[in-house]
């Protein structure tokens, strides 16, 4: 079964060996495997082998009805399920011609930005852990817990939210919840300073990441990198600002872009630090959204129980924590089920760049590279 990938890795000389890293490996961020050809510690090439978490989510999308598919989208990216919910909801709303009421859109933005912080916390935490800094991970998870608590209060789930629905969101914010969010934002801004002291400017950490795995801007676009990985390479692009969806046009926030803070633009450190800076912007957006939170319904008043959109196809894009997430949904006008649900994810295209970057890298640095790309295995395989 492995012959094809071994062929891909190519012939091995006396000095070289082929190693398997994964699928069960603590540093591969899920069930991902790399077939590494190495000469000592130096890699000739690392070929990613994915698919171990393929759950046929896209096929399930053709089997269940439009609203029934929403819980499955949670499983596409379990660290940032809000965005997966939102992308699917946007695509079906486009097909159905439904508008989301303003309050529903604000609830979406608040929940998404909370989720973005939670997802980035796991990313930066595990990145430290992969490099050998175990403490920051615990600090990151502590803050993530309080976000999980907040989201649990909002929608009853801590990980697989199923909160966004076609036509709005499932629940309005509970009484007093927004005050808790604001309190969290105040608390978290200070914590971010702490992270900078604990992890970001730690000398060993910087030396492990600076100048490592450099992705120039043109290469990042060519390989279809999105989100923080793209911005880490210096491309000033964020769907929330450049092609605003939902209510993002109402907010003022900065888009952090890689500047070669410690080494060169597009290195592992830039990708890491863009995420840290993005979390600061998230709290800004949450504050503005809570301040402007409009009254009214959170759900479109006339969402049909049986959804049968007219024949057509819709493509939606959202700026997920792992970058652009796209849903391509087609309907035939007769059935209550989608003819095709395609999920385009940031992790999948990010994995495609590992092989060209791995040539000449040390094996230990492969771990840093994967961590900096923030790939999540279920999002690669779906």
């Amino acid at each position: 079964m492995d012959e094809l990938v071994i062929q891909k890795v190519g012939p091995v000389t006396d000095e070289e060996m082929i190693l398997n890293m994964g699928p069960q490996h603590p540093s591969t961020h899920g069930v991902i495997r790399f077939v590494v050809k190495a000469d000592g510690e130096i890699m000739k090439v690392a070929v990613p082998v994915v698919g171990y978490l393929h759950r046929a989510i896209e096929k399930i999308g053709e089997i269940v009805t439009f609203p029934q598919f929403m819980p499955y989208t949670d499983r596409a990216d379990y660290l940032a399920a809000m965005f997966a919910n939102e992308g699917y909801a946007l695509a079906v709303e486009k097909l159905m011609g439904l508008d989301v009421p303003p309050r529903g859109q604000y609830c979406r933005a608040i929940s998404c930005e909370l989720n973005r912080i939670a997802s980035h916390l796991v990313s930066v935490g595990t990145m430290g852990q992969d490099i050998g800094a175990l403490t920051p991970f615990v600090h990151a998870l502590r803050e993530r817990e309080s976000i999980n608590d907040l989201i649990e209060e909002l929608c009853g789930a801590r990980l697989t939210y199923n909160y966004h629905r076609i036509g709005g969101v499932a629940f309005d914010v509970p009484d007093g919840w927004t005050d808790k969010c604001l309190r969290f934002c105040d608390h978290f801004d200070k914590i971010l300073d702490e992270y900078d002291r604990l992890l970001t400017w730690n000398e060993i950490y910087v030396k492990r990441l600076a100048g490592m795995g450099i992705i120039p801007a043109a290469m990042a676009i060519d390989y279809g990198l999105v989100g923080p990985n793209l911005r880490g390479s210096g491309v000033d692009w964020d769907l929330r600002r450049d092609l605003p969806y939902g209510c993002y046009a109402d907010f003022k926030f900065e888009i952090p872009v890689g500047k070669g803070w410690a080494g060169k633009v597009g290195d592992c450190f830039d990708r890491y630090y863009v995420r840290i800076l993005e979390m600061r912007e998230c709290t800004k957006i949450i504050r503005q959204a809570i301040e402007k939170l409009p009254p009214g319904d959170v759900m479109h008043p006339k969402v049909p129980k049986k959804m049968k959109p007219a024949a057509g196809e819709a493509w939606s894009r959202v700026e997920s924590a792992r970058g652009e997430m796209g849903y391509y949904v087609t309907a035939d006008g007769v059935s209550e089920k989608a003819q095709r649900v395609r999920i385009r994810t940031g992790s999948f295209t990010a994995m495609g760049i590992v092989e060209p970057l791995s040539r000449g890298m040390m094996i230990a640095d492969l771990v840093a590279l994967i961590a900096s790309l923030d790939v999540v295995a279920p999002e690669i395989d779906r």
Partner: protein
Amino acid sequence: MALTPEQIQAAVAAKFGDAVGPLAPPAKDPFFTVKADRLLEVCRFLKAEPTLAFDFLEDVTATDHLKENQIKVVYHLFSYAHRHGVVIKVELDRAAPKVASLEPLWKTADWLEREVYDLFGVTFEGHPDMRRIMMPDDWVGHPLRKDYQEAGGYEDISNVRDSSLVEYRRMDDAVREAVEAKAKAAAPATPSTPLAPTGTVH
């Protein structure tokens, strides 16, 4: 400057004539078809022409149409410079779907096309690494085709098995029957049905 899908289709149609289909449908996300043998040329034009400048291949996927006996490969293109996007499709014969790979133009096509090959069985000619990506290398069939039939299992592991609950139920029934039989044997012979009440109860 951002162009509308109409303008993009017009620009491509002006250059390639009847290799490019009309824009459809106007209501939802519009797209146009391109003849499969001209795809690489058209895409090269879409990428190189300065007013179009599609530098980002967002997505490659496919849809299966049994009635039309076609597999349609769908390309979502986007231009960061002009902030416009376009959807193009190629229509392929279901029996032997084959189209040129876009890997020479956009490297991201490498993985995206591998997924379409794996799940729909479309061969991309000129692709450097046409292997399955989601399913194991020895998998039979292409799961996202509409007429795909699941095999009974994989590597001697069945994907259907008896529920142990059924067996538990049978075991429970056996125990209950044994208890009842024992009780019946121990008790004196009594009528199996209670006697009908006689007289009036005061």
